[in-house]
């Protein structure tokens, strides 16, 4: 085969890949725009809007996401081995999605959104799965919102929040420590989790030394939702 012929073949292959990628990008742009809206509604929790209002909106948006991930899966199932070829095109958006889902889940239930639960919410499954690293990175982003959240809850008079958030972050941190992280992005994110933990510790400390923290509510594992 001549050099020209080979490069001509490559051109065709690469153009096909380019087209596929264009289709992926179209979906990802919609995901991105949905998460942007979700993030904007999420920011209302810092304004201490009623949780029910925030959660309701959230659920509708999750439905939109689910449909978008269905379309993404459809495109990629045509070429099963290439999942990771295009993975970069949607991973950062998916990490944000995870962080939003997990934060809302924590607000609602006080517990951590598990990997399988996250997959369920997005209608993903074994074939078109949620990458575990993306899930973990998403959890780190979640923790980044915590310090602001506890500060704002205290401002809104919810003095019990720091203790609960600290408990949750401490557990999450302990869980993360079980992982053997390489010197990569996840590791760096995990380091930021440590800072969030430290900051929440300080907020709780500020409450506690002033006897503002509510020590007695230890039987109550739920969260703001209950108050």
């Amino acid at each position, binding site marked *: *085969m001549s*050099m*020209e012929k*080979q*490069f001509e073949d*490559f*051109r065709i*292959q*690469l*153009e096909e*890949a*380019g087209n596929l*990628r264009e289709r992926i990008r179209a979906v990802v742009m919609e995901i991105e725009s949905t998460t942007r809206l979700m993030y904007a509604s999420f920011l209302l929790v810092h304004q201490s809007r009623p*949780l*029910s209002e925030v*959660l309701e909106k959230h659920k509708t948006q999750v439905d939109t996401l689910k449909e978008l991930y269905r379309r993404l899966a459809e495109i990629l199932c045509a070429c*099963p*081995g*290439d*999942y*990771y*070829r295009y*993975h970069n095109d949607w991973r950062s958006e998916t990490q944000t999605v995870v962080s939003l889902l997990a934060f809302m889940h924590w607000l*609602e*239930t*006080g*517990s*951590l959104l*598990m*990997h399988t639960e996250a997959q369920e919410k997005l209608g993903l499954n074994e074939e078109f799965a949620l990458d*575990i*690293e993306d899930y*973990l990175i998403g959890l780190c982003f979640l923790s980044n919102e915590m310090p602001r959240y506890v500060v704002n809850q205290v401002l809104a008079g919810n003095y019990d929040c720091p203790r609960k958030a600290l408990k949750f972050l401490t*557990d*999450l941190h*302990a*869980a*993360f420590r*079980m*992982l*053997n*992280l*390489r010197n990569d992005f996840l590791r760096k994110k995990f380091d930021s989790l440590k800072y969030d933990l430290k900051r929440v510790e300080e907020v709780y400390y500020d409450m506690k030394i002033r006897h503002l923290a509510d020590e007695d509510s230890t039987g109550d*594992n*739920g969260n703001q*939702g*209950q108050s």
Partner: protein
Amino acid sequence: NISKRPRTMCTESYMKDAFSKYADYLNDLNEKRERIVKASRDITMNSKKVIFQVHRISSDNKEEVLKKAEADLEAVKDQYISRLVKELQGTDFWKLRRAYSPGVQEYVEAATFCKFCRTGALLNLEEINATLLPLSDPSMEPLQINVLDYLLGVADLTGELMRLAIGRISDGELEFAEKICRFSRDIYRELTLLVPLMEDSTDMKTKMDTMLQSVVKIENACFSVHVRGSEYNLLGSSDPSSFLLGVPNLES
């Protein structure tokens, strides 16, 4: 009052169970990646040695040098590429690409370099992949170098061709140098068309700049020896063949 999850879920233990699964997953992945990175490094190092061997070429030892280089290349394939083959399958080809890509690129560079010196033509991706087939267990998806790594390897080839051309001119092999010149120009031109279609093309774009510099260096070297040769003819030398006899002459 929105939710009343059972309280036991809120202890650490449910997290621990899940995270120990994640930990296993990450450990396996990292260990595999480590092994692949190591294989890739070995491939790089030994492919570089093959390239170095080819540069030892001169007008009178071509056959001998190339034979050794080809044998070494074969050894790289059998000893190191085969380790990659064992590790990679299914989605790994793309998932772990960044771990093995440097080695594969360097291997492509070495293989195409040998082939060019032998035949003056570009070794195709299909041909390379065909040589890798025997390494794979027939029941599994065989390792195939992807287009991107192949093109990245070919892009580096021009740098070696440039070094080769400078050396060949010193050795008096003008025609060979001009052949390299044409060949490099062709590669550069063909890649110009493909680069914008490649994903992650920032790497490739810097390589294209380097490549153009290499091509220009080759052209300038050819130009410089060309005008000297022409002057020689103008000076009316009776024996044009004695021009540029190459360095060995000095030893006479």
